[in-house]
């Protein structure tokens, strides 16, 4: 009786429903953001197709199976970071520390695998298996990300500042842990993550595909994913709707940190060495991929698949320019131009949507 939905009026309203709502019925759209987002992705897809076509004509080494895997392997690290970055940016934040966390996680994982850790108080040395070292690397990344989230929610630091601090902290910790020297010769088993292949497909590509699939589902089909969009779209309204905004943010930064940890493992395994400077500047490539993929820097709008396209565009561009012997310096200039162009187009679309 207290349930207002089953008041006597409901029969009458159903008629109104039929009159009020017409056109395509509910459930036909692709959530979370419908036609406009698909149009944007479509544009990126066309841009990618044009690039692939042009490069195929310009270089006979471009359109080969080997080079395809090459590109996918090259973007796998950036895409791991960028999936996390997409979550952060969708929630209305930014994470400048992912590159540094990548370096720290890789170094910690490599160090534990190679040397274990001495617990002076107990006079023992803990040795790590490959699995243990992998888990430790991801946990280190997640912990750094959690710290970002805590700083942003507890102490209300702007994400830009909090993660800038973490960038420096993680870099410093990496240097302390490694003493500034690479940790090398990690063994074949660990190296498998970076250099191995399954069914002819390189491991980093498997990892990347699995993570993308997972987070496409998370963002489109789970409450958590919906809540990320809500927090980024209108934080105040999300709070008033009863969402635990702070928890959601902490979770998002923690995930971004963990994903940076995974990226760190891939980089380290691939080189069979943890470089103290690994991941330097990667956060910028990652933000670029997210933005090229059509995700709004103000939050609440965008998608993981957009970011996949963004990474592919950057990857194809780098690879193609390399094959064409374009100077790496020019490559940087061109990449910058593409970022500006992508965002400018997106802004123009946004203006059309709003008037």
């Amino acid at each position, binding site marked *: *009786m*207290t*349930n*207002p*939905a089953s*008041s006597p*009026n*409901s029969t009458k*309203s*159903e008629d*109104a*429903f039929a009159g*009020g*709502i*017409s*056109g*395509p*019925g*509910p*459930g*036909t*759209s692709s*959530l*979370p*953001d*419908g036609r*406009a987002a698909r149009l944007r992705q479509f544009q990126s897809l066309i841009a990618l197709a044009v690039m692939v076509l042009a490069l195929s004509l310009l270089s006979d080494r471009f359109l080969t199976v080997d080079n395809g895997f090459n590109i996918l392997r090259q973007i796998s690290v950036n895409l791991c970071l960028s999936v996390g970055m997409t979550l952060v940016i969708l929630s209305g934040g930014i994470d400048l520390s992912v590159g540094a966390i990548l370096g720290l996680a890789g170094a910690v994982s490599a160090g534990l695998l190679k040397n274990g850790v001495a617990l002076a108080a107990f006079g023992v040395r803990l040795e790590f298996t490959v699995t243990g070292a992998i888990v430790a690397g991801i946990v280190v990344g997640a912990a750094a990300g959690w710290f970002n989230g805590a700083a942003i929610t507890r102490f209300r630091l702007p994400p830009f500042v909090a993660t800038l601090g973490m960038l420096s902290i993680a870099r410093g910790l990496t240097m302390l842990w490694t003493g500034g020297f690479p940790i090398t010769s990690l063994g074949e088993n660990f190296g498998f993550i970076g250099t191995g292949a399954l069914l002819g497909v390189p491991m980093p590509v498997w990892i990347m595909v699995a993570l993308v699939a997972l987070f496409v*589902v998370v963002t489109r*089909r*789970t*409450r958590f994913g*919906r809540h990320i*969009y*809500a927090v980024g*779209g*209108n934080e*105040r*309204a*999300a*709070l*008033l*709707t*009863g*969402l*635990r905004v702070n928890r959601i943010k902490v979770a998002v930064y923690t995930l971004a940190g963990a994903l940076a940890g995974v990226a760190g493992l891939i980089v380290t395994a691939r080189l069979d060495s943890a470089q103290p400077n690994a991941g330097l500047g990667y956060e910028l490539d990652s933000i670029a991929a997210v933005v090229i993929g059509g995700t709004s820097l103000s939050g*609440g*709008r965008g998608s993981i698949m957009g970011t996949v396209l963004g990474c592919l565009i950057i990857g194809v561009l780098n690879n193609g320019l390399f094959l064409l012997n374009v100077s790496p310096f020019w490559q940087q200039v061109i990449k910058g131009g593409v970022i500006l162009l992508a965002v400018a187009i997106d802004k123009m679309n946004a203006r059309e949507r709003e*008037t």
Partner: protein
Amino acid sequence: MTDGGDIVLEARGITKTFPGVRALDGVSLRVRRGRLLALLGENGAGKSTLMNILAGVFPPDVGSVRLLGRDVHFANPLAALKAGIGIVFQELNLIPHLSVAENIFLGREPRTRAGLIDYRRLHDQAAAILARLELHVAPETLVADLRVGQQQLVEIARAVSLDVKVLILDEPTSSLSSHEVEVLFGVIADFKRRGVAIIYITHKFEELGRVGDDVTVMRDGRVVGEAPLSELTREDIVRLMAGRDQGETFQKEATEPGAEVLRVENLSLRGAGTGRGKLVEDVNLRVRRGEVVGVFGLVGAGRTELLEAIYGLHPGRTTGTVAVDGKTTLIRRPADAIAAGLALAPEDRKREGLFLEMSVLENASLASLGPAVKGGLIRPARESAHVSPFIARFRVKTPSLTQKIRNLSGGNQQKVILAKWLAARPKVLLLDEPTRGIDVNAKREIYAFVDELARAGLGVLVVSSELLEILVIADTIIVMCEGRKSAEFSRLEATAEKILTAALPDKTAVAL
């Protein structure tokens, strides 16, 4: 009235459509030299849209604007200003961290020969204008430090400093004290004497007789009447505005309230800074099942703050107890309030209520995704099955559930918010200014819904600054003044005079 020569500004056949709404439909308007045209109409009648077109904020879809007999097309507000059309918007458009003088002369600052801003001349000129408006603040004062009424005067000062042929004032007196209103009327008389044509948007009949010459009434995007003020009675104008006789407005039926569902005791809310007073002080109230309790108060009375404190938005600064269904509940965040059975539809829909990038469906389901989830995943079919009965119940006009909510009209957006909360099955609904910025018909619909929800067993606590609204929908009326509850009336006892008297802090100034 003769035609021709003395028409300064003329709009012809203006039509403007926004996604989902036809805001203006073939509107024509004329303003004459040295006369004040009062533009009347309910919220959503299209007045502000028309003014935005005249001031070059956006172009019309169809129709033309003629200034001094010549067709004009303004690319932006600056172009309109240069042509001689000045506008004082309803919302304040000042830059808070610049000074009063800098705001008045923004973009037109006097320069020294070196090209730097000549602050001495800037301040002298600003001081002269401020003196004329009897606004006793130094030109160097930051706008952020002024009261809202004073800020509104600074907006007007900006218009005064311009050499305009047409001046548009959009509800300029909404935050002014009665003395400030008098000063403004003096300034308007000056303008008229200098031959400036004025368009004056207002809701207040009292002001019309003082300054008006001609009247144009708009309703639902059309002009429904125009005449010299002297030829119209107040009743004529009301009838034109409402489009129906007064008796046809929403009529509430008497209800018998049930058991107590919300009890608030000794609720106080401290101000944010140190040393500030209390925003809400020692408020007690209760809401029963099936009862609509209205909270009325003037700006700054603590109405919104009361709702926010109940809803757990200021846990550190709130004292007192809240009991839902007889159980005292510690509410430290909105999630707790919702778990206890409360729901809040905030005043500022765009800023606090809507997810503009999301669809109608996603907005409506966000507070109660549980039934849409199976096996950890949101199932689109379940989601729309869960939400559509509520969307239907509130007769939301939308092409589909997947339409972005930004494309709906204000009234329909508000209905989606109501649907969202109803889908979450609350016991008490907190509504903050539920009909702000909504057109008349949608307003009446919302009143009917509130009534219907109460009848279905909900307790409703409505905050409103519209006296008429409170009188129409509330069973019990609580009046707030300076953070305290100053009176409580039953529906039968309440009159506009009693409520206003209780709401005014200065009991001598009942000159409304």
